[in-house]
C-alpha cells in the first residue's frame, strides 16, 4: 500500500521525459520494420506498413500521458493559467466584476453582522422572547418607567405575567478594601434574576427576606469582577466584602454574559431593600424599571389590555392636570433596548439587500457583455477541436478566479467596514464590540462565490459557441439587452436616491456642526468628578473638597476663569422639572397640564463667563450671594419671557417646588437673565432653563460636579495639570478630564454615524451604477462594432461615433435620473426626522446630486465609447 502510494506520488510530481517515450516508440518501429524485411518485404514498403500498423503516434503519446496520475492536475493548471490570462487580458471587465462582488459581499456581510447583533442577537436570558418591559410613559422621561406608589399594586393584581420584577437603577459604589475601586452597583428586586431566567454560575440567588429594609447586606458580583478581583475563587460565596464601608456578604456570581435589561453597567447587584408598605403610601414613590415574563401564549398587546385597570389606578395617583400626558406600554424587552435603532437597522438591511441585488444584476450584465465580445474566440477554439466540456470548464475556471477574488476582497472589506462601524457606533451599544465576521458570514461569502461562479461560467459556457460567429455577425442577445437596459435605468434611479439621501444627511451634519450652541467651547476644559460615599459621606465634606479644588485651580498658569456646575450643555444629563412646578410669587399656579420640561443646573458665579453665555439683564450671581442665606436664580431668556411676558424679571421672586409640602416651596430671587443655550442635545429643540447658585452652604452640594476651566495654555498641558491638581487633593479619586469641544463632538456621534453609513451606501450605489452602465454600454458597443466600422468607412468621424454611443446611453441615463429624482422626492420624507435645518426637498442638494450622477454615468459610458472609435473599418468590413 505504502509502496504504491509513493510510486503514485513520485509520478504525480515528476513526469517522464517525452524523449524516453519517443526512443521507446522508435525502437518498436525499427523492430517492426526489421521483422517485415526479414519476411521479405522491401525496405520502403516495410517502413510504410509498420507506420500504418502502429497508427497515430500522437494518439499513443496522448494515451501514455493520460495514464500519469497527475494528468488531471496538469490539465487543470493549464486551464487555470489560460483563465488567468483571460482575466488579465480584459482588466476593465475583471476589475468591474471583482469590484462589484467585493462591494456586494463586503457591504452586506458587514451590515449583516452589525444588524444581527442588534436585531437577532440572543438576549442572555432564559426564553427571552417572553420578556417584556412594562411601565408608564410621561413627557419627563422618554422611556417607560414605574413608580413605587403604584408598582406593588401592579405586581399584586396583574394577570398576564408569570412574574413582574423591578430594578431601581444603579449608582457608583466603592469596594473599600486594600485596593479600593469604583464600581457600578445596581439594586434589583429579589425575584429579578428568576424572572429574567438567569441562574448564578456560583452560589445562589437573593432570598425574599434579604430584600427588606435593614436586612443584612448581600450582593451578587459580576463574572468580570469575580475574575479580575477574586481570581475565579470558587469559595467566594459567604465571603464578606466591604462596599461603601459596609460589610456585605457575597452570595453568588453572575453568568459571564449577563447584562442588565437596560444595558447599564453593573459590577455588583444588591437587593433593592425598599420598604414596600411605605412605597405603597408614597406619592409618587421611588422610580423603578419594571420587567415581566409573559404567560405562555399571551402577546404584549393582550397583556397591555389586561393591565388597563391597573393603569387607571396609577393615573388616579397622578395630579389631575398631568393625567392626559401619561400613557403606559408593554413591549418586548428587545424593543426597549433598541427603541430608536430598530427602524434604522431594518432600513440598513433593506439598503444592503438592494445593493446585493444590484450587484447580481451587474454581474449578469457584465457577463453577457463579456460573452458577446468573446464569441469569436470561442468559435475559433471550437473549430480547433476544443470539446464543449473543455470550453465549459475553462469558462467556469475563469469565473471562479473572478468570484473567488471578489469574495476574498469582500470578506476583507467586510472586516474593515465592521471595524469602522464598531469604532464609530454611538455609545449605548457595548455588545457591538463583540461583533465578528463569523462562520455564517464566511459561508455566505462562499455561497455567493459559488453561485456567481456557476452563473458566470454557465451563462458564458453552456450556450454553444456558434461556429457561424466566425463568418457573420449574430444579432442574438439584443433582445436580452433590453432587460439589462431597464435594470441599469433602475440602478441609476436607485443610486440617485442614495446619493441624494447621503447629500441631505451630509448637509444636515454640516449644519449641526456649525450651529450656534449659545456657548463658546474655545479653550475650555472640563473635569468630571464623582466623590465616593466612604471618603466623603457628608455634603459638608463634598463642598469642602470642591471649593478647595476650585481655589487651587483658580490661580493656576494661564487660567482665565474656573466654574463648577453639575452638568453641561448642549446635551447629556441635566436636571429637569415640569414648568407647572414653578410659580411666580403673587400669581396663581400654572394649571393647564405640565407645561413641558424646564432644565436647570447648579452653577457657581463664574459659570456664564467661562462658557461665554451673555448676560442680558442684571449682573448674574456675585460673590455677595455666595454667603447669603437667601436663594437666587438666573433665568434663560425664553423662560424669563414665558414667566414674565413683557416685564423685567429682575428682582422678582419665584417659588420652586422641591418636594417640600404644598405652600412651603422655597422662594428664589431672580438676579439675572442670560441668553438661551442649546440644552436638549445637538439636534433637538431647546428647553427653557434656569440656574441655581451653589452657595457656601452644604445643602447646595452633592457628590457630583463638573469643573470648567478656561485657560490660554494648550489643552494637553492643562489636562495634565488639572489631573495633578485633583490628585494632590485625593490621589485615589477617579477623574475624567477633556476639552469641552471633545465632549460636544461626542454628541454628534450618532448623526455622524448615520451620515457616513448612508454616504457609504450612496458611494457604493454610484460605483455599482457606473459598473452596470459600463457593462451594458460595452456590450452594446461590441454588438454594434460592425455597424461602427461601416459608418467609419462612410466617413463618420470619431466624434460622431462617441456621440452615437452616448446617445444610446442617454436613453438609460435620462429616464433613470428623472425616475430617481421623483423617487428621491417621494422617499426623502423618511429622513426628515434625521435632518437638521435642511428641508427634505432641499433644491441645492437635489441639483448637486443629479449633476454628480449624470457626470459619473457619462464618464462610465465614455470608456466603451472611446473604445468604439478604435474600431478599424477594414477589419469589420472584412468580417462582414
Amino acid at each position, binding site marked *: 500500500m505504502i*509502496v*504504491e502510494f*509513493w*510510486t*503514485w506520488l513520485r*509520478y504525480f510530481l515528476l513526469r*517522464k521525459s517525452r524523449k*524516453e*517515450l519517443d*526512443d*521507446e*516508440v522508435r*525502437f*518498436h518501429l*525499427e*523492430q*517492426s520494420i*526489421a*521483422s517485415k524485411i526479414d519476411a521479405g518485404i522491401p525496405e520502403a514498403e516495410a517502413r510504410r506498413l509498420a507506420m500504418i*500498423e*502502429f*497508427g*497515430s503516434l500522437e*494518439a*499513443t503519446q496522448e*494515451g*501514455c500521458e*493520460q*495514464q*500519469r*496520475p497527475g494528468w488531471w492536475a496538469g490539465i487543470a493548471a493549464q486551464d487555470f493559467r489560460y483563465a488567468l490570462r483571460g482575466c488579465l487580458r480584459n482588466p476593465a471587465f475583471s476589475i468591474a466584476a471583482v469590484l462589484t462582488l467585493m462591494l456586494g459581499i463586503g457591504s452586506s456581510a458587514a451590515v449583516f453582522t452589525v444588524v444581527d447583533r442588534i436585531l437577532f442577537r440572543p438576549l442572555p436570558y432564559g426564553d427571552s422572547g417572553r420578556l417584556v418591559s412594562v411601565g408608564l410613559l410621561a413627557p419627563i422621561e422618554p422611556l417607560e418607567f414605574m413608580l413605587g406608589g403604584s408598582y406593588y399594586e401592579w405586581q399584586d393584581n396583574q394577570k398576564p405575567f408569570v412574574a413582574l420584577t423591578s430594578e431601581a437603577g444603579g449608582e457608583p459604589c466603592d469596594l473599600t478594601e486594600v485596593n479600593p475601586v469604583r464600581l457600578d452597583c445596581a439594586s434589583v428586586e429579589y425575584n429579578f434574576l428568576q424572572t429574567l431566567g438567569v441562574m448564578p454560575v456560583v452560589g445562589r440567588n437573593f432570598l425574599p427576606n434579604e430584600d427588606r429594609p435593614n436586612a443584612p447586606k448581600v450582593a451578587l458580583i459580576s463574572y468580570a469582577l469575580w475574575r479580575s478581583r477574586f481570581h475565579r475563587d470558587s469559595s467566594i460565596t459567604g465571603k464578606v466584602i466591604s462596599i461603601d464601608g459596609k460589610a456585605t456578604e457575597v452570595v453568588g456570581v453572575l453568568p459571564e454574559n449577563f447584562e442588565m435589561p437596560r444595558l447599564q453597567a453593573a459590577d455588583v447587584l444588591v437587593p433593592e431593600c425598599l420598604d414596600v408598605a411605605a412605597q405603597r403610601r408614597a406619592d409618587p414613590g421611588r422610580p423603578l424599571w419594571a420587567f415581566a415574563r409573559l404567560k405562555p401564549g399571551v402577546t404584549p398587546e393582550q397583556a397591555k389590555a389586561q393591565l388597563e385597570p391597573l393603569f387607571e389606578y396609577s393615573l388616579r395617583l397622578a395630579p389631575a392636570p398631568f393625567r392626559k400626558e401619561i400613557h403606559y406600554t408593554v413591549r418586548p424587552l428587545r424593543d426597549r433596548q433598541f427603541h430608536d435603532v430598530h427602524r434604522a437597522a431594518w432600513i440598513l438591511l433593506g439598503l444592503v439587500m438592494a445593493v446585493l441585488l444590484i450587484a447580481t444584476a451587474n454581474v449578469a450584465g457584465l457577463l453577457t457583455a463579456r460573452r458577446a465580445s468573446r464569441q469569436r474566440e470561442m468559435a475559433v477554439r471550437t473549430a480547433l477541436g476544443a470539446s464543449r466540456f473543455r470550453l465549459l470548464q475553462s469558462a467556469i475556471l475563469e469565473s471562479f478566479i473572478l468570484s473567488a477574488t471578489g469574495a476574498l476582497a469582500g470578506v476583507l472589506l467586510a472586516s474593515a467596514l465592521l471595524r469602522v462601524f464598531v469604532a464609530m457606533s454611538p455609545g449605548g451599544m457595548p455588545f457591538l464590540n463583540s461583533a465578528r465576521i463569523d462562520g455564517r458570514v464566511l459561508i455566505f461569502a462562499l455561497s455567493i462565490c459559488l453561485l456567481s461562479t456557476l452563473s458566470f461560467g454557465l451563462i458564458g459556457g453552456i450556450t454553444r459557441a456558434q461556429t457561424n460567429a466566425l463568418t457573420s455577425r449574430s444579432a442574438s442577445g439584443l433582445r436580452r439587452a433590453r432587460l439589462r437596459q431597464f435594470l441599469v435605468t433602475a440602478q441609476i434611479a436607485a443610486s440617485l436616491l442614495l446619493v441624494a439621501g447621503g447629500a441631505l444627511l451630509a448637509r444636515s451634519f454640516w449644519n449641526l456642526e456649525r450651529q450656534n450652541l449659545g456657548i463658546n467651547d474655545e479653550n475650555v476644559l472640563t473635569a468630571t468628578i464623582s466623590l465616593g460615599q466612604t471618603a466623603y459621606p457628608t455634603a459638608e465634606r463634598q463642598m469642602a473638597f470642591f471649593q478647595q479644588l476650585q481655589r487651587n485651580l483658580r490661580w493656576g498658569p494661564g487660567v482665565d476663569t474656573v466654574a463648577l456646575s453639575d452638568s453641561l450643555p448642549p446635551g447629556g444629563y441635566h436636571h429637569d422639572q415640569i414648568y407647572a412646578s414653578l410659580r411666580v410669587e403673587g400669581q396663581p399656579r400654572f394649571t393647564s397640564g405640565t407645561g413641558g420640561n424646564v432644565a436647570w443646573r447648579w452653577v457657581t458665579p463664574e459659570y456664564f463667563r467661562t462658557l461665554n453665555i451673555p448676560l442680558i439683564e442684571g449682573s448674574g450671581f456675585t460673590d455677595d450671594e455666595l454667603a447669603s442665606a437667601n436663594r437666587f436664580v438666573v433665568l434663560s431668556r425664553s423662560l424669563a419671557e414665558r414667566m414674565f411676558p413683557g416685564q423685567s424679571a429682575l428682582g422678582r421672586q419665584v417659588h420652586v417646588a422641591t418636594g417640600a409640602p404644598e405652600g412651603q416651596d422655597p422662594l428664589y430671587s431672580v438676579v439675572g437673565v442670560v441668553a438661551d443655550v442649546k440644552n436638549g442635545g445637538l439636534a433637538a429643540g431647546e428647553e427653557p432653563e434656569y440656574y441655581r447658585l451653589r452657595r457656601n452652604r452644604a445643602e447646595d452640594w452633592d457628590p457630583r460636579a463638573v469643573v470648567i476651566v478656561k485657560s490660554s495654555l494648550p489643552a494637553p498641558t492643562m489636562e495634565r495639570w488639572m489631573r495633578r491638581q485633583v490628585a494632590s487633593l485625593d490621589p485615589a479619586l477617579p477623574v475624567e478630564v477633556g476639552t469641552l469641544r471633545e465632549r460636544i463632538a461626542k454628541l454628534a456621534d450618532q448623526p455622524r454615524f448615520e451620515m457616513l453609513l448612508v454616504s457609504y451606501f450612496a458611494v457604493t450605489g454610484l460605483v455599482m451604477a457606473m459598473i452596470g452602465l459600463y457593462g451594458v454600454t460595452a456590450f452594446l458597443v461590441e454588438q454594434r462594432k460592425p455597424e461602427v466600422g461601416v459608418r467609419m468607412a462612410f466617413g463618420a468621424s470619431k466624434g460622431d461615433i462617441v456621440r452615437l454611443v452616448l446617445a444610446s446611453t442617454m436613453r438609460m441615463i435620462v429616464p433613470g435620473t428623472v425616475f430617481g429624482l421623483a423617487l428621491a422626492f417621494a422617499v426623502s420624507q423618511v429622513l426628515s426626522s434625521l435632518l437638521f435645518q435642511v428641508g427634505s426637498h432641499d433644491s441645492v442638494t437635489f441639483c448637486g446630486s443629479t449633476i454628480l450622477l449624470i457626470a459619473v454615468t457619462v464618464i462610465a459610458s465614455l470608456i466603451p465609447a472611446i473604445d468604439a472609435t478604435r474600431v478599424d473599418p477594414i477589419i469589420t468590413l472584412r468580417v462582414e
Partner: protein
Amino acid sequence: MPTPTDLLQGTLDLLILQTVALEPMHGWGIALRIQQVSRDVLQIGQGSLYPALHRLEYKGWIKSEWANSENNRRAKFYKLTATGRKQLAAERDSWNRLSDAIGLVLDKTMEVSS
C-alpha cells in the same frame, strides 16, 4: 471481488504482467510474445500497449530500465516488481474463477441443448 467487466478490461494488464513475469522484456517483445503464445489470436495494438505499460509502471507493478537488446540496440525493458508479482497472482486467481464459472455455465447449457 472484482466484477467480470473489470476483469475483461484488465485482461491486457494480466497478459502483460504474465509475459514480463518470465523475464524482463521490451514493448515490441511483449507484443510479439503474446501474439506468438496465443498462436496469432491475440494481437496487441500499439495504441493500447504503450498506455497500458505506462499505466502499470505508474501503479508500480512493473519497472523499466534501459538495456541493450538481443541485436545490441538500446531498448526499454520492463520487469515485474514485488507488488506486481502479488498483483499477478491475484489477477490470475480471479481470471481462473471467472473462466471456470463461464465454463460451468457453458457446460450446463450444452447438456441442456444436447
